[in-house]
C-alpha cells in the first residue's frame, strides 16, 4: 500500500506544482524555495513526518521533504546536544545529500559536455 501512496502523493505534489507554474508568474526556482520552506513549517507542526509515515518516498522525494528533513535533524540534534543542535542539526540529515550533490556535481560538470 505504501507504494501506491508514494506514487499518488508524490504525483499530486508535482502535478499541483505544475498547475501553480502554469497559472502564476512563479518560476521553478521560486517554487522550489516555497516548497522547501513549506516542508520545514509543516514538520514544525508534526504534520510532515506523518505524511512520510503514510506516503514514504511520496513525501520524502519532493523538495518539501528536504525542508522537512532539516527540521527533523535540528530537533534530533537539540535532543542530543542542547542549543548547539540548532546549528549542527541543520545538516544532520541533509548534509550527506548536499555534500554528494557538490562532489558529484563538480566532478560530472567537469567531464560531461552539455547536449544540444
Amino acid at each position, binding site marked *: 500500500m505504501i507504494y501506491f501512496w508514494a506514487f499518488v502523493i508524490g504525483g*499530486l505534489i508535482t502535478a499541483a506544482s505544475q498547475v501553480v507554474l502554469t497559472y502564476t508568474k512563479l518560476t521553478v526556482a521560486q517554487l522550489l524555495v516555497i516548497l522547501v520552506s513549506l516542508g520545514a513549517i509543516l514538520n514544525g507542526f508534526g504534520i510532515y513526518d506523518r505524511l512520510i509515515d503514510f506516503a514514504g*518516498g*511520496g513525501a520524502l522525494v519532493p523538495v518539501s521533504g528536504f525542508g522537512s528533513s532539516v527540521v527533523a535533524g535540528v530537533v534530533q540534534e537539540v535532543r542530543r546536544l542542547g542549543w548547539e543542535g540548532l546549528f549542527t542539526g541543520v545538516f544532520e540529515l541533509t548534509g550527506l545529500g548536499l555534500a554528494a550533490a557538490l562532489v558529484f556535481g563538480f566532478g560530472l560538470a567537469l567531464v560531461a559536455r552539455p547536449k544540444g
Partner: protein
Amino acid sequence: MDPKRYRQLVQERAPKPNVVRDATRAFLLGGCIALIGQFVFDYFRLIEPTRGEAVAATLATMIFFGAVLTAFGVYDKLGEWGGAGAAIPITGFANSMVSSAMDFRRDGIITGLTSKLFVIAGPVIVFAVVVGFIVGLLRSAFLGLFA
C-alpha cells in the same frame, strides 16, 4: 499595426498551455520518481540503524541519480516531457545544480562551473537552513527540549 492589437493577435496565435496534459504528465513522472525513492528508502530502512540515517541516505542517493542522469543528458529530456514532475523532486534540485554548472563550464572552474552550481540551489539551501533553523527552534522549545 497598433501595438495593442498586435499583442492581442500574438496571444491568440501563441500555443495555449495544455493544463490537463501538463499536470497529468507531471503527476506520472513525479509519481514514478517518488516510487523509485520509496524503493531506495525501503532498502536503507533495512540496512541503516535509524530512520534518520535512512532518510539521509535516500536523499543523497536520489541526488546522485539526478546528477548522473543530468550529465548524460537524460534528465533534461525528462524535464521537457514532465515539467514540474522532473523539477520538483530532489532529483530536479540536483539537475538544477549540474546542468547550470555544465553550461557555464567554459567560463572557468571558479567563475563558471562552481559558482553556477548554486544559481538555483543557493536560494533553496539558504531558505531550507534559515526556515529550518527557526522552525526547529520553535519545535524544540514546544517539545521542552531546552528545559
